[in-house]
């Protein structure tokens, strides 16, 4: 079999996962106590008005039929209408994807920028004080609650020294980047600690490998040994780790977006859960879950591409 043939077969394994996700999402959302029609219309709604709304959104149908409609619409690329915002769920999500996607990408880029140099520094000075300092700092970093770290960064970089905006998103590219910096840094500081440990361990192994020894024997300077041989080989095992953590990260955006008032999908989800906006909760959970599956798939492809010996 060709190395990349899993790209064709793997999506077939996604089908049961996506189906399971849709079923669990549907059941969870229906189990949340509270009637969306009542939430929408308020306490003084008449029974007729409530019945009308329930009929309009298909909430008066039997559950299995509601699920069938949900699946059928999903196949047509429809996720229903938001009860609160009164617009199509997909269009609502589309307006919220950009801040979340930008936040995730910015966090990943920042955490790589933090993790790679520090891992290299630690690995090249293995067992020396700088290595220990980096290890202790990164062990500390793992336990930073993102919501607290975000607030501390606000105190440091937005209140005490007003460099960055505290909340919101902005309109121009520059404004958006400025608004993204603190939330992305918050996530990156947590994420980079995990990456750092795995990268350092891989680099330490590769610095001792025959490849590196052979290169040194040929008279290749140490910095070239590192950039040409050690770094590329060390990255492969961290790709999957990064993918697993992006799943965490997507969930983490829920909290971070609340703190920094970023108008993304996480914020949308929290509000939808509290306002019993079934269709939106379903839609966002499905998008999140599919994104997680996709990221893992892309990571598998990247791992195979980065290391010719890996077969999936």
């Amino acid at each position, binding site marked *: 079999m060709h190395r990349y043939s899993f790209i064709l077969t793997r999506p077939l394994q996604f089908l049961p996962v996506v189906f399971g996700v849709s079923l669990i999402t549907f059941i*969870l959302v229906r189990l*949340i106590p509270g009637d969306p029609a009542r939430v929408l219309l308020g306490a003084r709604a008449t029974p007729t008005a409530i019945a009308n709304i329930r009929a309009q959104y298909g909430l008066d149908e039997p559950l299995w039929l509601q699920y069938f409609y949900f699946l059928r619409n999903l196949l047509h690329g429809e996720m229903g209408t938001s009860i609160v915002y009164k617009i199509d769920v997909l269009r609502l999500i589309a307006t919220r994807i950009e801040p979340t996607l930008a936040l995730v990408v910015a966090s990943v880029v920042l955490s790589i920028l933090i993790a790679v140099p520090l891992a290299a520094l630690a690995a090249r000075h293995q067992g020396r004080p700088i290595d220990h300092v980096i290890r202790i700092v990164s062990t500390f970093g793992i336990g930073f609650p993102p919501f607290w770290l975000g607030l501390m960064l*606000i105190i440091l970089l937005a209140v005490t020294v007003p460099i960055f905006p505290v909340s919101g998103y902005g309109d121009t590219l520059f404004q958006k980047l400025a608004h993204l910096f603190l939330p992305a840094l918050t996530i990156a500081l947590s994420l980079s600690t995990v990456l750092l440990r795995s990268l350092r361990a891989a680099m330490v192994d590769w610095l001792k490998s025959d490849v590196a020894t052979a290169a040194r024997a040929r008279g290749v300077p140490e910095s070239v040994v590192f950039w040409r041989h050690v770094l590329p080989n060390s990255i492969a095992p961290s790709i999957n780790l990064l993918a697993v953590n992006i799943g965490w990260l997507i969930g983490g955006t829920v909290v971070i977006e609340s703190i920094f008032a970023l108008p993304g999908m996480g914020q949308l989800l929290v509000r939808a859960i509290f306002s019993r906006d079934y269709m939106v909760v379903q839609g966002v959970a499905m998008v999140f879950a599919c994104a997680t599956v996709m990221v893992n798939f892309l990571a598998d492809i990247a791992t195979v591409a980065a290391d010719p010996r890996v077969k999936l």
Partner: protein
Amino acid sequence: MSGAAATRRLSPTLLVGLGILGLFALAALAAPVIAPYDPIYQEATARLQPPSFAHPFGTDNFGRDILSRIIFGARVDLQMAAIGVFFPFVIGTFIGALAGFFGGLVDAVLMRLIDIILAFPFLVLMLSIIAILGPGLSSFYIAMALVGWVSYARLIRAQILVLKTADYAVAAVSLGFSKPRVLFRHLLPNAVAGSVVFCMSDAVLVLLSGAAISYLGLGVQPPTAEWGIMVAEGQAFLSQAWWITLFPGLSIVVLAFGFSLIGDALGEMMGVHE
């Protein structure tokens, strides 16, 4: 390193980690004795006081002593970490052992279920379950048990798959020992080391999740002293009274650091790598 050598010389990492955990456990147990004030007593004349000799970590907007609230909060947060790890560990170990040992249809179904649960962003699933059960600590524990077992199940299953082909396992089966006896008396004790190490990094995740859930207002309810809630309560006073937010967060960081150190040390002792 052999077991005997490991116990003879405890690594400094382990000692520091155990020391931190012990300190917090002591604070939790002896909270009423060592806390200088009642954690929910509101001293009207001492609102938003910065750290001083009378209030080393300052007071909050209700005039409550932050240090005392942190000491009492240790009870809640340690309990959260312990219970939040225990049930997933037990459930996941049991399910993973069965899946790995018996294989076949049970294994296939369980693995697909794990794939589905892992496809959900963790916090999204937690939030939905807590929204169903209503806010509170018990909802958090149930949600944690429903979601957290998958990591343990995967770890144990992978170990059992390797171990069940080992000579001693084959010998036990050929001696006519019953399947449960082979699984629970022979395989499981050898498979569990990796999970015990993982418990420590899981304790960090559980602690952070529990605090995050409380921070979002879905966990422990006020006026109970809990570190996540305290961070949330300080948020409105961030620019005028940073100490309300700083110290409870630092407590989380230090306790998590303790768990991580213990996990690292255990991993090294048992030769387990994550």
